């Protein structure tokens, strides 16, 4: 297939991401079948500031900007995830996420995130760890 990906690719990519580093191969297969794959062209919005009903995204390839009121606040790349704050708080996102290069993501519907994290507590742990890193760098930036 032109520019296509082999079917084992999603599992292989998942296996390399720290979020899923504690999962067995069958569990990774299940995760690959649980998330949907979506691609976004450069410049396309992935998450829209102020719009409800969004999901949880994990970047497999490419790059995206966190854009607040039109200003770029951060860059996200392979292995980064986003959308979880809006889902966990049940509030519309406070930033746009915009693909700044062709972007390939795995997506979980917001309503499925709680069940997923409860089913895979090791992923939840890794997620909290990543959030702690984000918090630390935000605190360092402020001080």
């Amino acid at each position: 297939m032109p520019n296509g990906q082999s079917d084992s690719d999603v599992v292989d990519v998942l296996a390399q991401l720290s979020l899923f580093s504690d999962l067995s191969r069958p569990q990774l297969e299940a995760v690959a079948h649980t998330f949907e794959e979506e691609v976004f062209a450069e410049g396309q919005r992935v998450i829209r500031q102020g719009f409800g009903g969004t999901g949880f995204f994990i970047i497999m390839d490419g790059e995206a900007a966190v854009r607040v009121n039109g200003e770029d606040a951060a860059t996200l790349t392979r292995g980064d995830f986003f959308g979880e704050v809006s889902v966990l708080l049940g509030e519309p996102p406070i930033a746009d996420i915009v693909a700044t290069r062709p972007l390939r993501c795995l997506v979980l519907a917001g309503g499925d995130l709680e069940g997923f994290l409860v089913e895979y507590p090791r992923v939840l742990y890794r997620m909290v760890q990543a959030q702690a890193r984000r918090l630390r760098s935000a605190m360092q930036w402020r001080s």
Partner: protein
Amino acid sequence: MAELASRPFEPGRYPVVVIGSGPGGVQTSASLRALGIRHALLSSDDVPGGMFRRFPLFQRLITWTKPFAPAERRTRPYEWYDWNSLLGRVPSEQSLVAGFMDGTSYFPSRPEMEQGLAAFASCCDIRVRYGCTWEGTRRDEEADRFVVETSDGDYACTALVVAVGMTEPWKPSNIPGIEDVPHYVDTRGARTYADRRVFVIGKRNSGFEIADGLLPWARQLILGSPRPAKISVLTHSTAAARARYLQPYEDHVLGGGTFVLDAAIERVERTGEGFRVHASGTSRPGAYAFDVDDVVAATGFGTPLAPLEALGVKTFYQGRLPAQTPHWESTTVPGVFFAGSITQGSVGLKKYGMPSSSAAVHGFRYNGRVLAEHLAATRFGVRPTRRTVEPSEVIGLLLDEAAHGPELWHQQSYLARQLTRGSDGSIADDGIVPLQQFVDQAGPDSVAIAVETDAEGDIHPAVYLRTGGSVEEHLLAGDPLLRFDGEEHRAQLESIMKEWLP
């Protein structure tokens, strides 16, 4: 084979070439024709119908058509209740599938659907060059055209619409031994599975369809795939396993002898006349080995895109779908468009995780009509007359669309009705547009209304107001009887739009 004797569309130059004579290609052709856009419609088949000439295997669709409904047949509101007919210009071209149904089910049989499609093609005088196989595509840079290579010769066009369906049997390549396993399309007649043990790989609609069809015959049925089955009545999505195929699931949960397992298939081994399926449990860890007589790979389909390979069309979903813009144009090769079930590759907003209905006729028939309007407007300068709407009519029109508009109901959070306010304060009806296009593109002050189902299953209208270039989302209340045109909704929408309306 009368069609082959008088074949239209000799090789040559056409403004648009449409490939495929399934419902996607036929709808696009009918819609282009209604707008007066000259095009060639090519197909390797010899009659219209596409996938419905063969599938579903067990002969009845999962999309309903209600012969008797609250709306009158052959009207636009009736489309809400008729998921299977294509969209005509006049009443005599509308609601045709209903006329072929014999009353034994509100799901048409495959032959009833096929007859409905053939009748549509006939009464709309859809002309197709049958027996013409698409072999390749190249770009003529100098002439700024595509050259479509076929078994009959070359066709040059400025816009190519590919409507060949997700018709290519697909199997995962990471399961050793799966090459020996017949795909869904090669499932034999049900009687040949009498008293046999059957393992079905896959727990989507095609997997459940086979299991349901084999319940009266197979000695034992096992369905296996890594993630738990998603069921439409729980997920509120037509993409999940549909209720009418769920008898095997009930058999499983009541301990009747059918098993629906969450397991990653590791390999499939031949054992004399049968197979041994090795799997690892996912929801419940553990190793399994199943000795069975038959295995069927209900692992889905891909799009036969090989004739586009040279152009560099970007794909995703293991190469099974082309990546598309909100108007179903390739994201990497402008001028190449898609119609029919391939349009599910234009994902849209997917609010609350709900996919569009673009995989099925009731969704993609509207995409085809919007695509034809988009091509006519952007490439040929043909724009439908935009009706002016009096400010006093706006609230009623928007609520009427939310309450009865079939495009909004069948393509939730995907297609929307748009009105635009001109600089002189006049308001124009822009018709049906892709919602993603509306919310992500700059444009004049406008309003769009859509229908959506949220995570709790509540169905309600959503209004998007664009003012000064920025778009705001407003959700209206739901209603237990889906009535969105009463006083409560009127008051809510008036409050939202009081600054917007002149």
